[in-house]
C-alpha cells in the first residue's frame, strides 16, 4: 500500500505552537467578534490529509500566515501548499477546504482558494478548477467524491486542539 502513496514520507511539522487562546472580549457575548484569519485557520487546520492520518496543519499544507480575511468586504483568500509539487491530491485538498468553509462560514463570504505561488506544477489548472463554482457543485453531487471529502472533514472540528492518531 505505502509504495502507492503519492508522497510516502511527508515531513511532519510541530503544531503545538499556535492554539488559540480566547480573549476576554471573545468570551463576552455582548461584543461582536469579526471573523479573522485565526478563526478561518482553526476551521481548516485539522482537516485530514487524504492519504495520511495527519492534519493539513501537521503537513504544513495550511498555514495561519497564508490566510487573508477582509471581514468588512466579506472576502477570504486561502493559499495552501501541497506537500510535493506534483501532488495529484492538490485539487481534492482544496475541495475539502472549500467544503469546510461552505459549511461553516456565513453565506456572505466569498472564498478564494489557491495553491501557494510556486508550490505546484499545475498551479493554474488547480486554481481554476477550485474556483469554478459550477464544477465544485458538480463534484459535490458525486457521492463517491463527497464521501472522501467527508472523511477528510471528519477531524476538522478538532480545530488544532488534539492530534488525530490512527
Amino acid at each position, binding site marked *: 500500500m505505502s509504495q502507492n502513496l503519492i508522497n510516502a514520507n511527508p515531513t511532519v511539522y510541530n503544531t503545538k505552537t499556535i492554539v488559540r487562546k480566547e480573549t476576554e472580549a471573545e468570551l463576552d457575548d455582548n461584543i461582536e467578534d469579526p471573523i479573522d484569519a485565526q478563526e478561518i485557520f482553526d476551521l481548516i487546520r485539522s482537516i485530514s490529509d487524504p492519504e495520511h492520518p495527519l492534519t493539513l496543519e501537521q503537513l504544513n499544507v495550511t498555514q495561519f500566515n497564508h490566510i487573508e480575511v477582509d471581514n468588512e468586504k*466579506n472576502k477570504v483568500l486561502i493559499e495552501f501548499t501541497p506537500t510535493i509539487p506534483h501532488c495529484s491530491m492538490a485539487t481534492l485538498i482544496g475541495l475539502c477546504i472549500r467544503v469546510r468553509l461552505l459549511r461553516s462560514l456565513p*453565506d*456572505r463570504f*466569498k472564498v478564494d482558494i489557491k495553491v501557494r505561488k510556486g508550490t505546484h506544477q499545475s498551479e493554474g489548472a488547480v486554481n*481554476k478548477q477550485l*474556483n*469554478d*463554482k*459550477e*464544477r465544485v*457543485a*458538480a463534484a459535490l*453531487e458525486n457521492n463517491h467524491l463527497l464521501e472522501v471529502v467527508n472523511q477528510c472533514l471528519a477531524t476538522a472540528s478538532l480545530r488544532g486542539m488534539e492530534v488525530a492518531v490512527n
Partner: protein
Amino acid sequence: MPRLELLATLEGHQDRVWQASWHPSKTLLATCSGDKTVRLWAPLSLTDPTQWQCVETLEGAHKRTIRSVAWSNTGNELATASFDATTGIWEYDRDNWECAATLEGHENEIKSVAWSATGALLATCSRDKSVWIWEVEADNDFECLSVLQEHTQDVKMVVWHPKLEILASASYDDTIKIWKEDEDDWYCADTLTGHQSTVWSIDFDASGEHLVSASDDETLRIWKMYKPNNPQGIPTHNGEETWKTICTLSGYHNRCVYSVSWSKVNGYIASVGGDNSVRIFAKDVEATEDEESPIYKNIATEQDAHGVYDINGVSWFPNKTHGDWLATVGDDGMVRIWRLIE
C-alpha cells in the same frame, strides 16, 4: 439616471437557481435549479406585475442539477440540460408538462441547451468538451447531426444566432467558437480569443452581427462580425466571417461575470456575477465617433440584487410587451423580476 425597480421576488426553489428563460410570446418564465426542478412562473393578473405565482413544477426527469432551460421558438416545448448528462424535452400534454424525450450521448455534465431560431435544431454542450447539434424531427425524435470537439475544455454555454443557423459556444478554455454548416457538415468557422479566463456566457444582439461575452476575467467583451472584403479592411480567412473585439467593459464587475443578456428590444446589455450586482450597459451614441470602436456606458447598477449571494443568470424579456423587464436568479434560490425605469 435610469434605475432598476424590483417588481417581485419569487420563492420556491430549494437550491441555487442557475438560469432564467422567458417564453417567446407569453408572460411566462422558466427557471432551473440545483433542486433538480424547473419552475414556471406567471403573474397572477396581467395588470399587476408585482404578484407572481409558480404555475408548474417540472420534476422527476433528472437525477442531478438542472443547469439550463430553453424554450423552443413556438414556446410549446422546453429543453432542460442536466448534470446527469441527459437533455430533457418537455411538452404540454392536455393539462400538464411531461418529459416527452430524453437525449443521451454526452459523457458528463451538460452545461447548456439552446434551440435555433426556426426550432429546427437543438444544441447542447458539456464538460466532456463537446458541442452536439441535434435535428428536431417529428414526434419528439431527435437525430444527432454532429459532435463538435474542438474546444479543449469544459463548454459552458451555447447560443444560436437570432436569425441564421449559426451557433456560438463559450468555454473554460477561455475562447468562443462560431459554428456553421456546410452541406450537412458542421465546422468551426472562427475562434474568438481575448478573454483571460473562462467564458461563462454569450448573447447575440438583435441583428446577430454583434456578440457580447462575459468572463471569469471580470470583463465583458463586445465582438463584431466582419464579412470577407469588408470596407474596414479587417482581414478574413478562407472566405469566412471573422469576429473582433470592438469594446471591452472592464472595471465594473469585480468578481466573475456569470451571465449576460443583450436585449432584443432596447439594445441594452445586462450582466450579473459573483459580486452580487446587476449592471446595465448602453451604447453611448453621442460619444461613439467610430462604429469600429463604440463606447458603452454603465447606465444602471443594482448592488446586492440578491443580498450577499452570487447572481447566476440574467435575462431580458424577449419582446416589446415588457421590453423593460429583466429576470435574475441567484445562489439564494430566489428569482427576481426587475423593471428598468428610464
